[in-house]
């Protein structure tokens, strides 16, 4: 699918945020009026370790152009160890996606604390810019397309 020259490409971005740090960080970005593109839609999960790689693949399959996972900083997890597991799982998943030829700029993990509204906003701005520059995601939606 090609994008018309004068039609601006707006990516679909799914952001998984842990309830205790990153979702609160997003709230702080909001109450501090620190803007980031409307392309980002947040899904609240209790902890970054709740995010099943299936969810990320599902998002890509349904047409997402980028998926970002935000959690508490390592060592600060509300559940003590959740983000440590998430970190290993996502490292493995991202490496695999990269391996099968999916642009690695479409996936990201960022640690954002409840006090880091500014970091949340900056991260989202940066991620949206990166995904926008990669353009529409065709590879993940199309891995086994028979046409």
């Amino acid at each position: 699918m090609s994008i018309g020259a004068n039609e601006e490409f707006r990516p679909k971005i799914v952001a998984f945020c842990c309830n205790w740090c990153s979702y609160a960080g997003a709230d702080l970005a909001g109450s501090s009026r620190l803007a980031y593109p409307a392309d980002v839609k947040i899904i609240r999960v209790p902890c970054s370790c709740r995010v099943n790689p299936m969810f990320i693949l599902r998002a890509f399959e349904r047409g997402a152009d980028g998926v970002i996972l935000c959690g508490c900083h390592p060592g600060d997890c509300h559940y003590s160890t959740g983000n440590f597991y998430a970190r290993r799982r996502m490292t493995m998943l991202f490496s695999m996606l990269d391996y099968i030829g999916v642009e690695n700029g479409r996936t990201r993990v960022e640690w954002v604390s409840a006090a880091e509204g500014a970091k949340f906003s900056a991260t989202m701005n940066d991620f949206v810019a990166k995904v926008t520059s990669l353009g529409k995601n065709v590879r993940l939606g199309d891995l086994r397309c028979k046409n």
Partner: protein
Amino acid sequence: MQELINKAKELLANGTVVRVLGWRAGDLSYNPEPAFFETEEDLQKFVYDGFCGANLSKYMIEASKLDGKTLVFLKPCDTYSFNQLIKEHRVDREKAYIVGVGCRGKLDIDKIKEQGIKGIESVEGTELDGPDTLTIKTLYGDKTCSYASAMLGRCHVCKGKEHMIADEIIGESKDTKDAERFDAVKAVEAMSPEERFNFFQKELRKCIRCNACRNVCPACSCRKCVFDSNKFDSAQKANVDSFEEKMFHVIRAFHVAGRCTDCGECSRVCPQGIQLHLFNRKFIKDINEYYGEFQAGADIEARGPLTNYTFDDVEPSIVKERG
């Protein structure tokens, strides 16, 4: 082979085991099937040769539910799987009498066919103590090829001929490793993202979702597979464009990551010849690089890499930095 049969007879007779898990002849001479034997009479059908490549560990899940002990013949590489299954409480060590069988590599009929040999009726010289050259009886007369040239791909990158678990060992092993295990993965890694994408798209396009890989895999031993459950909306198989069709192999590899012993059964059974081990081995390679050398099934104690962590683990951004 006779040694194995004698051992089976002996253990059945003295009541150590009540059944034997081994092989019997299949439809084709080079296609033996795993089978249970319960009497000395049954054992007349027992066969064992170079084509007995199947990993019998997974059959022990069902055998563990039965009364009495089962004698099982395991190659060195099968024992990793057996250990992993013990660790996951899927097999009962007490219900198994393990005879470790020596190994000089297992054969792949396709490797013989690839050498231009057609009309194969039978292959001779495949026994453990057989010669280095195979004699192939064909409709067009006898042909020969070297044993090594007919080996399964996995045997060329063999993890070693030591049994990780066994009650006793029968037969001598011969080293078959003549290639590096991760070379194939490295070759893919060296491609550009476009080439990698095209490569995997071409591979996966061949998939007919027969589920043979899943059914044979000792790590894929779930009572109910997520792909058959409605918990992820992934159960509907009809729609070829659905999520699982595309992601099946990636998810399957992720599910067994850290648990896969690299037994190579998935690639062996794939009717379409998809190089499925490339997924599993990629995870193994990453795990070794990021979290230290780890061999699933080497013991029954160590914590799996994905159920473990250290404070200083690499960040997922390593994927990007590594480039």
